[in-house]
């Protein structure tokens, strides 16, 4: 056992860090102040994505035939961490979750147009899974796709929490294609819906943290070439990437960076009684609790990335990481915000905001993850079943 990076991995870390420090421009930071563009989509975001594509970063973990560097999951994890720490709204789900599925299951047109577009930094894809009545129980989705006599599909339904759909080029839509399937998940197919299709529309949902969307598919006619994978076999395409997706939700880097920033802030600031904050026992205690949790998170993430490379990642491990990481985030934001105190609640760009109001924003966004990406109670059921062999109830 040896839990340290190799020299090559450390070199990659430096390479990405240096690259991102130059890539992340003031224009980009300015653009992200607009809530519409906090998660990307503005002109500077588009420009920088193309640059990252041209410089070969998007294809980092991709096979050579796509011009990739065939990075291992650990190297990809290092990349993800540095990109997240830089604060760039990189569309990981497009490049790491959907992209590889399209490369594996898409037809030549999809590969040429969409996959190449992703790698060139010109395509962003939103995920259309959840519906108003199908959240954690995704297989109960009702959006319907019916094949017409001419082979085209007619899609009708509504999706919710379709993040990035307000600027995405495509929506990756799960739709029911067999109403009578023996089991609900056996009647689902996957489609790539171009966002400029006249049957597609969206409205904004403003959450506590970020903007997301409700998306509508009204008599949306789609040529069969936009279907990905076999008819009624869509479920496998959804679940195939879930473990990888769960890992990308709980990256250690951004919270570690916040921890450092808060510790530095506590070293440089005094409380109202004139005492150095870092000298207060409770401040040290909060930092120690965050550091203790961070250490476990870092190791969980690295072990999963390693296990992914070895092909030994289990469901229960992926679920454990998701539950632990997301609940730790919530706790860490609280502990760190306690150190900043009342002034920590001043919003970014308001006079007197501390650490650019980052924690004020993070705690609002943080609550999404415990139920998003697979609700934590369901993850715990997976752990009890797959990890501890306990029988499931109803």
């Amino acid at each position, binding site marked *: *056992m*040896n*839990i*340290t*990076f*190799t020299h090559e*991995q450390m070199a990659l870390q430096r390479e990405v860090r240096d690259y991102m420090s130059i890539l992340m421009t003031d224009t980009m930071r300015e653009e992200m102040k607009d809530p519409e563009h906090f998660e990307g989509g503005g002109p500077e975001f588009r420009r920088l994505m193309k640059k990252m594509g041209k410089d070969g970063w998007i294809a980092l973990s991709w096979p050579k035939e796509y011009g990739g560097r065939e990075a291992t999951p*650990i190297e990809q994890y290092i990349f993800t961490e540095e990109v997240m720490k830089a604060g760039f709204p990189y569309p990981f789900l497009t490049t790491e979750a959907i992209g590889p599925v399209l490369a594996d299951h898409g037809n030549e047109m999809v590969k040429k147009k969409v996959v190449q577009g992703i790698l060139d930094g010109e395509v962003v894809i939103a995920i259309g899974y959840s519906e108003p009545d199908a959240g954690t129980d995704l297989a109960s989705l009702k959006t319907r796709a019916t094949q017409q006599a001419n082979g085209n599909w007619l899609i009708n339904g509504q999706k919710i929490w379709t993040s990035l759909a307000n600027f995405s080029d495509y929506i990756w839509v799960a739709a029911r294609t067999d109403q009578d399937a023996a089991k609900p998940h056996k009647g689902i197919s996957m489609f790539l819906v171009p966002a400029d299709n006249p049957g597609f529309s969206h409205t904004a949902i403003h959450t506590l943290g970020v903007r997301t969307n409700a998306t509508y598919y009204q008599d949306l006619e789609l040529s069969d070439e936009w279907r990905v994978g076999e008819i009624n076999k869509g479920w496998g395409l959804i679940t195939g990437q879930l473990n990888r997706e769960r890992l990308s939700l709980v990256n250690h880097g951004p919270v570690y960076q916040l921890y450092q920033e808060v*510790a*530095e802030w*506590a*070293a440089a600031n005094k409380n109202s009684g004139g005492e150095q904050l*870092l*000298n207060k*026992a409770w*401040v*040290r*205690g909060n*930092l*120690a*609790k965050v*550091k*203790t949790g961070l*250490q*476990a998170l870092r*190791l*969980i993430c*690295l*072990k999963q990335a*390693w*296990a992914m490379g*070895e092909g030994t990642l289990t469901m*229960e*491990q992926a679920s*454990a990481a998701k*539950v*632990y990481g997301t609940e730790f985030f919530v706790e860490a934001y609280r502990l760190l915000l306690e150190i900043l105190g009342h002034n920590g609640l001043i919003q970014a760009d308001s006079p007197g905001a501390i650490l650019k109001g980052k924690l004020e924003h993070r705690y609002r966004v943080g609550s999404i993850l415990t139920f998003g990406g697979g609700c934590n*109670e369901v*993850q*715990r*059921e997976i*752990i*009890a*079943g797959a*990890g*501890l*062999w*306990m*029988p*499931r*109830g*109803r």
Partner: protein
Amino acid sequence: MNFSYDENQLEIKQLADKIFSELANDERQKLVDASGSRFDPELWQQLAESGLLGIAIDDSYGGMGFNFESLCLLIEEAGRYVAPVPAIHNLVSAAMPIQRYANDAIKEQYLGPIANGKTLVTATLANDNSLNAIQNSNGDWIIDGHISCVPYAVYAQAVLLSATSEQGLVILLVELNADSKTLTLVEQQSTACEPWSQLHLQQHPIAAENIIASGDKAAECQAWAQQLTIAAQCAMATGLSDKMLRMTAAYTSQREQFGRPVATFQAVGQRAADGFIDIECLRLCTQEAISLLSHSVDNSNQSVINEAVTIANIWCGDICHRLSQSSQHLHGGIGVDRDYPLHRYCLWAKQLELSLGSSASSLEQLGDQIAAEFA
């Protein structure tokens, strides 16, 4: 980066599992418990004969010459069975500092017999400064004071201790000679029935060659031995907690109430899943600490090691407590019945939780380390 164990290590794990399953199973442990003292000499001899007591002892002294990480695999398995043997005290807290800091004569005298199970050496290395040492003009030493909770002293031939002196800290080996008029042992019973003793030393003479380290070296030796001991305790806690959780999952899967297995109640499954996540955190933080302690060649990353060990100790205290309580609770009445093996795990968990620093004191220590880093 590699999270797997090599072949030799996996063999150690398997061998330990085989011996413990034969000689530390529930039936045998009931006999040991009935004896009133949790030490099983036959099991200890079996471990010696299989070579496992010498895992981390140099081959020149008859050991296998593997590293600390390999030794911790034996310790983790000992935890999985709450094996009634002084694995940590003897093989980690005593043997490792002797091997690294003692003179050749002491190494010659003790390491071989430790590896072949003929001699048991124990250790007490907490920073309580309750022993005082004075050096004579002839170079020998006189020790005064008393300490508590010396594990397995009644079975040990010697105990490794620290004492304060005018020259600073000294680490010394005190032979536990029954006829000595200046040394008295008073037996104590720990919560887990581990044989403990109070050790009283009155003007007790120690030969100069029994001084293992003094001055700066002594502080270094004590800190290092404490870190190894904490990491080994964390490894033991990992095996122990994991087994508690597995027992709980198995028991609730067959125990029926309201016409169905208790495990099918969501609240039960959720609480067990929390235990699974807890143990994963403890295991990984422990592996990190052990890996750093095993592979560091110099002191260049000392602060990283300090931090990793302290963090592992925090997890150890928290998880020992949480898993012990949730396992008892999910078992219901049988979990506290002394006829059912879980009780041994829970008692041992409490002991690991408080040995060499609780979670709370370790958190304070970590907070101070962080403050020093950012100040």
